[in-house]
């Protein structure tokens, strides 16, 4: 546990040691604001909620989270510091979890910095703050799932560009499974149960259900087990690839 904390602190400080962190946060805030106000026409809607804000999160994360996760292990392998790390008295599990938590915490900071949205909506109207809180929790959980996928992909390669492209593609699959286009495609000729199983693997399905204001146990289990599963595969991938 102590090692996890030490590694976590080093990782998190690492984000702020370079401009990467600031660039990421600024771009995230500009994009999320732009999409909400300009594209989503939040003011014109005249509704005191943040639906028009949270709707964009899965799509923003699709590109922004792989930009964070791509360097997680690829950089460590390219620099050779992975050899340093795993010859210290640190276990694989500690390293994988610490790195993931640091990245997750960083996205949490970026997400928290959207608080002016929450302030404005409370100033302008009388929103259901329970729904907003649930949506923030859901968004954070979804970010964790994207990150776990990205970390796993990053463990396979030394090349950050490859890590980015593959992470985006893989995350896209996890979004698409819940869209109407894909579900309509399957409608009619596959059993409903299969269709629902597919939809239940989608980030959209689970995030949208949380956005309604109810944090269902099933949604928690979905994101939690997805993260755990990809982190486990992450550890296996490092073990297999660290010799190259």
């Amino acid at each position, binding site marked *: 546990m*102590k*090692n996890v904390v*030490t*590694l976590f602190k*080093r990782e998190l*400080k*690492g984000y702020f*040691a*370079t401009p990467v962190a600031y660039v990421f946060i600024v771009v995230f805030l500009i994009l999320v604001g732009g999409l909400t106000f300009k594209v989503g026409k939040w003011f014109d809607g005249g509704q005191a909620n943040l639906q028009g804000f949270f709707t964009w999160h899965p799509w923003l994360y699709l590109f922004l989270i792989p930009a964070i996760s791509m360097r997680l292990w690829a950089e460590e392998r390219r*620099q*050779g*510091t992975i*050899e*340093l790390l*795993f*010859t*210290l*008295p*640190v*276990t694989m599990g500690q390293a994988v979890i610490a790195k993931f938590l640091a990245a997750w915490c960083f996205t949490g900071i970026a997400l928290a910095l959207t608080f002016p949205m929450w302030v404005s909506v409370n100033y302008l109207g009388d929103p259901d703050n329970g729904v907003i809180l649930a949506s923030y929790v859901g968004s954070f959980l979804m970010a964790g799932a994207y990150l776990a996928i990205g970390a796993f992909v990053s463990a396979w390669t030394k090349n950050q560009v490859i890590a980015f492209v593959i992470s985006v593609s893989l995350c896209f699959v996890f979004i698409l499974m819940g869209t109407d286009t894909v579900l309509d495609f399957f409608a009619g000729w596959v059993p409903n149960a299969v269709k629902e199983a597919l939809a239940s693997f989608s980030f959209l399905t689970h995030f949208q259900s949380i956005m309604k204001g109810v944090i269902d146990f099933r949604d928690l289990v979905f994101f939690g087990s997805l993260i755990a599963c990809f982190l486990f595969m992450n550890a296996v991938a490092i073990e297999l690839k*660290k*010799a190259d």
Partner: protein
Amino acid sequence: MPPMIEIRNLTKRFGPFTAVDNVSFQVDRGEVLGFLGPNGAGKSTTMKMLTGFLHPTSGSAQVCGHDILEAPLEAKKVIGYLPEGAPLYPDMTPRTFLEFIAEVRGFSGAEKTRRVDDVIAKVNIANVASQRIETLSKGFKRRVGLAQAILHDPQVLVLDEPTDGLDPNQKHEVRNLIRAMAKEKVIVLSTHILEEVEAVCSRTIIIARGKVVIDCTPAELAARSRYHNAVTVSVAPDKANAARQGLAQLDGVQSIEDLPSKNGSTQFVLIPKPKRSIAVEVGQKVREARWEVDELRVENGRLDEVFRELTQTTSSN
């Protein structure tokens, strides 16, 4: 007491390629083991298995009685390791980096600060301790890497090419540091600089194609050279022929090899018969004949030649 390092039948295969092939050796306290071999011979792979980074395909490695596979954390605690190329986190400063290492090694508070200060002084990086590592020169980076390896005063020190890329002064400093630590530790270092072996090691292992080809002291290694105890003679050109003929007749001399002339005098090497020392007889002969000899030098043996012989005969098999 068991040996500090015990490697038994260590083998590592990458697909069809055998990088390390059934390597066994032991190292005891006070020994500085020089690990020699051509590039790609398996030196680094052996060290990576010894330090627990790579899993062997078969065989075992024990460090201070801890098996690196069964008790990896205990083993890693007693090892200090400088990986090849001294990898470091470029966005940290040497001080924050060393503090991080100290924390992972289980130090905190005043003890942590003391250890970090100590080691910064030891490797002489105080001037750059708050500069980002990516801005440092190669020599400084190597020293930060070394500092990281010795911070917890490990019983076993494994250094993969510790002086690679350093200038002669820096090499000298690093070697002094290694010598100073040699007594109470076990040090394994790999290098392809042969003088380094003579300068710091008490024992050498040459590895080629993944196999140990020789395990002996540097002096024994030099003694395998046909130039061991050879005598180089420089003499004025007009006396050269007489000297060459006279010295060739000496009992202990096996053959004579000509060298390019230097400062206007002719040079040649007298190669002794195996296990013979000819310095005395050559000296006497030179005095008796009254040749004007500019230089008379006894060679210790040429390690590079022995190295080539040992590693190339194996690779032609």
